[in-house]
């Protein structure tokens, strides 16, 4: 992807440049009796933050609160000190929504240019900024076609281009890598890194933790409307060591193994599986358990035929934080 950039500095008299790029203060949002976001406090200044959570966890609600499409019922959302619901805050933020809707009759270029004009730019400014944004997302030469004929990846690029128009310090991207091919993903990842290096704040949502791991070490995990954890992935994994994981084993003698494992302090539960040689163990401290399990296998000649941690994927790690549900 060409490394084009927009170099001017936004001039925003109403905003406070020392204030956090995005600040949620004890924010709650209900949809009738259903709570969408529950007492969320989040403060972002710069760099990339990944927002991860299962479908229905409240990610989109949180992002819509951040972009001023929804108003919090309790608490306050501000962007550089300006209330997010206030239209002036929209000068400070670029938003790439998850929803895949456009003015389909337009070409990609026309769409982005229209969005630029709706930001109050002159025709000349709008054209220049559109050209720059189109170049940034790698759509040069393809942006004159009608949007209705675009692939999912091209549509994602156009959505991202319009988010870049105002050269915002805060970029909020809802599932931006969804539907993009591996090469396109790498382009996007490179672009996100480049934007982050320009001292911008990027909040990127995804329901796949693995996807976000490639982008950032700073993750906020949402579950049931709450921010369940914020921090580096390593920190979250350490946190997870205190939560049990489930291990499935196929052994020559599962009953003897079960008796041995029950004495281990990390094992919190044992089940004999549905098949004759299967054993399922729930383990509290995974790292401590695996360190000892190797020794037990050799010492007691346990003849392990198969071993898998059913939920040892990042999806499962996420699942623990979500209260037992995986991705």
């Amino acid at each position, binding site marked *: 992807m060409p490394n084009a950039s927009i170099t001017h500095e936004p001039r925003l008299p109403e905003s406070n440049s020392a204030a956090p790029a995005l600040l949620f203060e004890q924010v709650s949002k209900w*949809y009738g009796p259903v709570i969408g976001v529950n007492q969320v406090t989040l403060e972002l200044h710069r760099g990339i933050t990944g927002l991860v959570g299962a479908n*229905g966890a409240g990610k989109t*609600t949180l992002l819509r609160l951040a972009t001023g*499409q929804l108003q919090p019922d309790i608490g306050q959302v501000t962007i550089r000190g300006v209330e997010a619901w206030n239209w002036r805050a929209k000068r400070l933020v670029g938003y790439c929504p998850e*929803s895949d809707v456009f*003015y389909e009759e337009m070409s990609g270029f026309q769409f982005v240019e229209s969005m630029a004009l709706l*930001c109050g730019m002159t025709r000349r400014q709008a054209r220049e900024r559109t050209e720059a944004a189109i170049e940034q997302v790698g759509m040069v030469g393809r942006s004159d076609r009608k949007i209705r004929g675009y692939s999912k990846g091209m549509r994602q690029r156009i959505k991202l281009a319009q988010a870049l128009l105002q050269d915002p310090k805060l970029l909020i991207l809802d599932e931006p890598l969804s539907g993009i091919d591996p090469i396109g993903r790498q382009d996007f990842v490179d672009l996100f890194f480049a934007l982050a290096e320009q001292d911008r704040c990027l909040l990127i949502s995804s329901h796949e933790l693995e996807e976000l791991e490639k982008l950032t070490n700073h993750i906020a995990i949402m579950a049931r409307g709450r921010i369940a954890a914020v921090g580096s992935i390593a920190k979250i994994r350490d946190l997870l060591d205190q939560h049990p994981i489930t291990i499935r084993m196929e052994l020559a003698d599962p009953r003897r193994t079960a008796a041995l494992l029950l004495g281990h302090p990390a094992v919190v539960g044992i089940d004999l599986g549905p098949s004759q040689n299967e054993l399922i163990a729930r383990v509290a401290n995974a790292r401590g358990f695996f360190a000892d399990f190797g020794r037990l296998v050799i010492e007691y000649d346990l003849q392990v035929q198969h071993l898998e941690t059913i939920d040892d994927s990042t999806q499962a790690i996420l699942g623990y934080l979500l209260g037992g549900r995986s991705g």
Partner: protein
Amino acid sequence: MTQQNGLEPGTSTLRAWLALVRLSIGQQFRVRMMIWIALGLLAITSLMILSITVLGDWRQTDDRPRRRGPTYGQHAQRLVAPRSVLAGNPMAGGVQDAITASISASLQTSGFRVFSIFVVFAVFQQFLLPLWTLSFATDALGRERESRTMIWLLTRPMPRSAIYLAKYVAALPWCLGFNIFGFVLVCACGGEPGWMALRLYMPAVIWGTLAFAALFHLFAAISRWPAVLGLIYSFFFELLVGTLPGDLKRMSIGYYVRSLMYDATQHLDVAPDQLNVYAPVSGDTSITVLAAVTIVLTIIGMIAFSRTEYREDLAT
């Protein structure tokens, strides 16, 4: 609208607003079902009026007060006949001449009255005007909501009230254009009485369009089904309340449009039998009320739109 510097000194909210008006006008080019229905109704109405104009006469000369009785024209002729009987009494003859001339003149101008009552009041003002306005006015915001593209407007640095106003302003050329064009076509198909109606009723059509457009645009801001709400309003509330005796009908927009039409033709005996019951207000009052309704409904819409969250495509 204040000039708001933001990204660069050249960016302004006013320019953004004008761009939205331009964009929205262009978007309404895309003909949708309601507009096809409106065009179809215009074609059918025009053809019917044209056929009456070409094949018959809008005047009541050939109409019969009783099914098997003589026509109004024949009645007039019969009044001329006894003239010879009154030859010896010049005073009685003079009265007879005056009555005959009055009836003949009334029959000669009855075309306009018939056209007004059956085409302008019953068909155009009560049915076509609200329906055509509804087609465009609900579409301005309704289309954005239905196609879930509202998100692109709501994430632009523009006050929500300005977005609402821009959409209303963008809908007006279409509402006014279609209603004026439709009224011209309908009147043109009506021949002489049609041209007269066009000249006299056009201000009422314009004021009515502005007020109805403001109302239907508001429906689009507050409801997911503005067209349904508009149809219910037009064909239940307006028809029912607008024709009730008493003051309740003053709540309907159509009442003031009709009053304005009556005011324009008060010297032409258009609806003398209805005036006592209908009790229309004066033309000035009608214009004042219609203008006030337009402004107040637009302000209400701006406030409502500013406070409303649009969640059409929201999945938490």
